[in-house]
Each structure stands twice: as C-alpha cells, then as structure tokens.
C-alpha cells in the first residue's frame, strides 16, 4: 500500500503532507495526556506517560521485526506480513499508535525506499491515520467494550483491519486519481485495489487477532481497552475531519479533474453550445494553463531530438563526474 512519489502530483502531496503534519502535531500534544476517564487514577496515568516513550520505540521496532517474519496464507501457498496499525493502537492507544506507525513509515521511506518522501503525507494518512485514528476508535472500541470474550476480540481485530485496509485502498485510489499521473480511470483502479486489500485486510486481521490473543493470555493489562470499566469513547474530531476532507476532495476531483471532457460536454449541452468564458478552475487546469503559456511547444514532445540530446548530455556529465571523483 506504500505509494511512491512517481504517481503523485505536487498539489496532492502538498495537501496531504499538510494534513499529516497537523495530525502529527496534535498527536505529540495528545500523547502523555491522560484520557478523561483515567484522571481518577493519577499515579497510573503518570506512570503510563513516563513509560510511553520507550514503549513506543520498542513497539515500532517490534512491528518492524514482525514484518520480517512472514506467515503462510492458508490455501494459497503465498505469505504475507502485518501492517500493524490496529495492534499498535490496541497497545499504545490511538494517538501514540499513530505516531509510532508514522515513525515506521518514515524509516521505511528513508532506509528502504519503501514509499517516497513526498508521498509520506499520503502514506501517513492512508495507513497510520485511517487505521489508528479512524478504524480503531470507531470499529474496534465499540466492539470490544466491556467484553471479555476471546471470539469478540478476534472478531473486532479482523473487522477493524478489513475496514482500515479498505479505507486505505480507497484513499490510495483517490490520491492517485487526483494527481492525474496514471491514465487508469477511478472505477477500474478501485476495482483493482479493493479486492486485493480486502484479502490483505483479512490476513492482517487474523495476524492481529493471533497476537492480541497471546497478549490477552499473558499480559491482559497491556491492552488499553481491556481494563476500562467505562470507556467513554471520544470521537477523534480531527480524524473525522480528515476523512470528510478526503471524501469531499474525491467528489470534487471526480467531477472536475478526472472527467474534464464529460463536464465540459455537459456544460456545453446545458448552455446550448454557447461559448463559456471560464471552465471550472481546478488546480490541475490552472497548472495546465501555466504549462501551455510557458511552454514553447504547447503540445507534447514534437521531436525526439530533445530525448537524444539530454541523454547524451547525461552520459557526458556522468563521465565528467567520474573523472572529478578519481582526481
């Protein structure tokens, strides 16, 4: 699900980076502050705060290590690994889980080239925010509230993982289509992404359920939702805002960006062929306008000479760079 830089355009990656940065800022504020229903037990929450920083570090490393260990997917012969959002949220809480998963994504980006630097915002939203800040509080918590049944915890893990992965796949599709780099239309891309990620979600859910079952057997107090008598689930306002923003952007994008021809055609029909001074301006269209006004050749590549020329220049400069280095 890691998006790479190549399929995304500046307006989209700047917007998603700003949203992700905002969520990270809020997370750093919220971590360490006890929840309203924990205030009664001052010593426990202070203890938890002090423990949280090293715990986040090791839990992040744990997910990393767990990703190295593939499990066998039944009846397929292939193997999968865990993303870990739901597991992190179950042990650390939504905000600390979000920040930990974000740090995992940064490490994957910097050290493994898994997902680009510019798409970090997208990846943080698609994987960390949607699983820890949206799916966990809205699906997992209500399902396990005041419940002690193993089956219920397992069901919650699986359902939450599937919801998180499906939302992630939808978000990837929306962000990619808004960027307008791929020629694949919305519907087909989604039809390509969604079934795969529903299956991945099932695998992720089974794996999460297995780890949580082990934790419940040995150290049930580690799961933050297992000990609360009255969990007054506070709906994370910002998470909802982010989802709404994504949906609005996708609808706007579907109307304005991915089908400009259809839109112009329908406008033309409603105005009976009269000329329209300004077509609906979106970031893409204005970018296109800048491009056509600044470019010498408004159409794409008119000749291959440019390709050959730049190619030759690259070879020459690479050669020169070798010479400089040997000197």
């Amino acid at each position, binding site marked *: 699900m890691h998006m790479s830089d190549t399929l995304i355009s500046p307006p989209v990656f700047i917007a998603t980076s700003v949203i992700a940065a905002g969520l990270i800022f809020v997370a750093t504020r919220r971590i360490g502050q006890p929840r309203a229903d924990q205030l009664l037990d001052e010593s426990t929450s202070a203890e938890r705060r002090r423990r949280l920083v090293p715990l986040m570090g090791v839990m992040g490393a744990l997910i990393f290590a767990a990703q*190295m260990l593939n499990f066998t997917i039944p009846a397929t012969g292939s193997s999968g690994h865990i993303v870990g959002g739901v597991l992190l949220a179950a042990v650390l809480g939504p905000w600390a889980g979000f920040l930990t998963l974000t740090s995992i994504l940064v*490490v994957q980006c910097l050290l493994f080239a898994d997902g680009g630097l510019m798409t970090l915002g997208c990846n943080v939203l698609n994987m960390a925010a949607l699983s820890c800040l949206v799916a966990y509080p809205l699906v997992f918590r209500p399902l396990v509230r005041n419940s002690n049944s193993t089956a219920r915890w397992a069901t919650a893990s699986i359902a939450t993982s599937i919801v998180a992965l499906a939302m992630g796949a939808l978000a990837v599709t929306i962000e990619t289509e808004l960027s307008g780099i791929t020629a694949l239309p919305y519907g087909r891309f989604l039809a390509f992404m969604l079934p795969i990620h529903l299956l991945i979600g099932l695998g992720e859910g089974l794996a999460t359920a297995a780890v949580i079952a082990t934790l419940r057997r040995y150290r049930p107090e580690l799961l933050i939702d297992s000990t609360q008598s009255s969990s007054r689930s506070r709906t994370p306002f910002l998470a909802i805002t982010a989802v709404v923003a994504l949906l609005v952007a996708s609808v706007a994008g579907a109307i304005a960006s991915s089908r400009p021809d259809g839109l112009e055609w329908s406008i033309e029909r409603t105005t009976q062929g009269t000329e329209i001074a300004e077509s609906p301006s979106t970031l893409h269209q204005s970018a296109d306008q800048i491009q056509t006004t600044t470019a*010498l050749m408004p159409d794409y590549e008119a000749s291959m000479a440019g390709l050959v020329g730049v190619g030759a220049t690259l070879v020459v400069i690479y050669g020169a760079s070798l010479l400089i280095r040997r000197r």
Partner: protein
Amino acid sequence: MSDGLQRLLVRLSALERATPNHSTIDPRARIVVTLVYLIVMLSVPITRLSELLLYALFPIICAADVGIRYRPILQQSLVIVPFAALIGVFNIFYHREAAFAIGGVIITRGWLEFGSIIVRALLSVQALLLLVRIEGYNPLCRNLQRLGVPAMLATQLIMLYRYIFVLAEQLLSLTRARASRSFNRRAMPVSEWGSIVGQLTVRTIERAERISLAMAARGFEGRMPAPTTPPRRWLWRDTIYVAMWSIALIASRVLYPVERLVQLFETL
C-alpha cells in the same frame, strides 16, 4: 528467513552514520534542496520526458560533489521499477495517440508517459538514497528536529532504529528455536506466527519497562539530550548553496531549456 534478517541488520547498520564524504554543507541545507528538487521534478508534466531527464543531473552532480559513487545509488534505485511499471503500464494502453516517430516506429503518448513514470520513480528514490547516504540516519533525524519536526517524533525515530537491532536478534533466536524443533518446516500458519510475535511482544514490553526505568534513573525526560558536540551553525555558504540549487531547479522547470535548445538547432 534468518539470512534475510541478518542481511537486513547489516544493511541497516551501514546507514546509521554518514558515508565518509567531503560534504561541507549543513545537513539542513541539503534536506531543503532535496525537498525543492523533489517538488520541482515531480511537477514536470509527464508528457515531457526529455525535460524530466534533465533532472537526472541532480543526483549525479550531488554524488560527485561530495565524492561518493553514483553507480550503487543507481543500482539500488532500480528496485522501484517493477512497482512503478505495474501502474505506469496502463498509460500505454489508455493513451495511444502518436507523439513522434523514430524512423518508421511511432512512439505513442502512452509510452512517453510510461517512461516518465519510471524516470520519476528512479529520480525520487535516488534523491532520497543520496540524502541518507551523505548525512546518515541519526544525524538526519537530529537535523529534521532542528528544522521543526516535533522532538517527540525525532526521538521516536532514533529509538525505533535503535531497537530494531535488539528485537531482530531476539526474533532470530525465536525463529532458530522453531526451525530446530520443526525440522525446518517452511510453512508458518497464522496461529503459530501469532504466538511467536505475541511472545516477542510480551518479552519486548517487559524489556521496555526495564529500559524506561533505567532511562528514568539517568534523568531521561521524554526527549533525546543534545549531542555533546555543539551542532553545526548555519553559514553564508549554506544559504548560497540553497539559493543556487533552488534557482537552477526552478529555472530549468520554468524555461524548458531542452525544448529551446532543440528549437535553436532546428532554426540553424
């Protein structure tokens, strides 16, 4: 499995510190220039492959500038090609209009876009690899903090990196034990995986509790202390470095130098 883990550890530890280089530029300046580069490069329209190729100069020049080899960077960046091709290939099918012809062979717009998607992927990965190679992971995290990344996230990044080694070693011993008990049976059902990772989680958290006590005893208050050597100060040289690269990159984006040159040749 265990081979993979060991290789991973070796690769990771190589990236912790900077590759020896001649860099005299503040790491923050290099981070800013890399960001400018990525934004400008990714904003080039994908039908303009020749303009995009011009941006391949940046990693080559940067590598030569600090005196590290470009070829390994290029080789490492190739891992991204299959992923980029998987999505990029659809442009070939959807955009079939002819763009230009080489001899009798007509190149379609889809093929140009496919080429652009691959080049964009390669260049963005190379810029990133180069940044980490030149500065090293730990210094990079500290400088990200100096650039405004929250201290909590920066601390988390350093801690995460540190504990990957500790946990990978524990995981190695767990998987080795399993391998010797199970006569190297390859398949690992989810239930068995869950109990191994669950065990690891319990061990890990117990370890984290000991670590947090030890750190608290040494006066840790939730963020990394400043390094003992004072951090490098921002110099005029760094400002000039950022300004020069930004001007060059933005100018090459706005002025379309390749197309101008081609036109010039055609008029001559």
